[in-house]
């Protein structure tokens, strides 16, 4: 296959593998989320229904998994795009994206527990 469609050469092999793994998880997490919010929830998307669901520890675990997968997949994908631009200060970019990732995950978990 051509390598035009792969970020394999842009990032480290482990990051590339994690990008694939999180992609598979994202199909599951996003599929369930869209179903719950827009198919089941389309009947009546209320604050009460959201609050009730979010109190369930299994749903909390689900959304923490979703959060970890989406933040990693999104920011790692962004990293691939930035690296493909030929930027030389890769350590700086990595550092900035790690800070954004950690803040995003902390804020997401804070949201889950402060609702």
């Amino acid at each position, binding site marked *: *296959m*051509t390598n*035009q*469609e*792969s970020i*394999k050469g842009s990032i480290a092999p482990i990051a590339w593998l994690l990008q*694939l793994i999180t*992609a*598979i998880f*994202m*199909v599951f997490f*996003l599929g369930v989320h*869209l179903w719950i919010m*827009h*198919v089941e929830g*389309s*009947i009546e*998307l209320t*604050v009460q229904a*959201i*609050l009730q669901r979010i*109190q369930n520890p299994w749903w909390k675990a689900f959304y923490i998994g979703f959060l970890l997968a*989406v*933040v990693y997949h*999104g*920011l790692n*994908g*962004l990293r691939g*795009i930035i690296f*493909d*631009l*030929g930027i030389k200060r890769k350590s700086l970019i990595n550092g900035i994206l790690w800070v954004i990732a950690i803040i*995003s995950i902390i*804020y*997401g978990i804070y*949201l889950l527990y*402060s*609702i």
Partner: protein
Amino acid sequence: MPLKDSLYWIKLKGKHLSDGIAFLFHRLTGLVILLYLYIHFAALSQLIGAQSTGGSNFKNFLKTVESPPFVALDILLFLVIFYHGANGIRLVINEFGIGTKKRQLFFWIMMALGIIGWILLSYVVVNAFLHS
């Protein structure tokens, strides 16, 4: 790396739809979804303390987004998500060496599945909006 080389993925000339162009749109839709993630965080922040306050802020927010322009934006967002998802599944499968010999066919099968998913979800959302 010269700039013209580093921007190889953004150029359309000489590329096939199921190859470089699909990857260009994959990256662009990925950026849109990443941007939406942070907009979603901002929207959900209105739920902070909702357990004790009853979520009046979020109820007002729901009233705003349950309007035709926002439903239209939702439908567009679903298209972006279904494209990225369907093409992403194709890329993951391709990375394992499967479907690489029939790339065009595989691409169009995944696009068809993505469009079917998008139409079904859009129908459910529009139907719910019209009957709310």
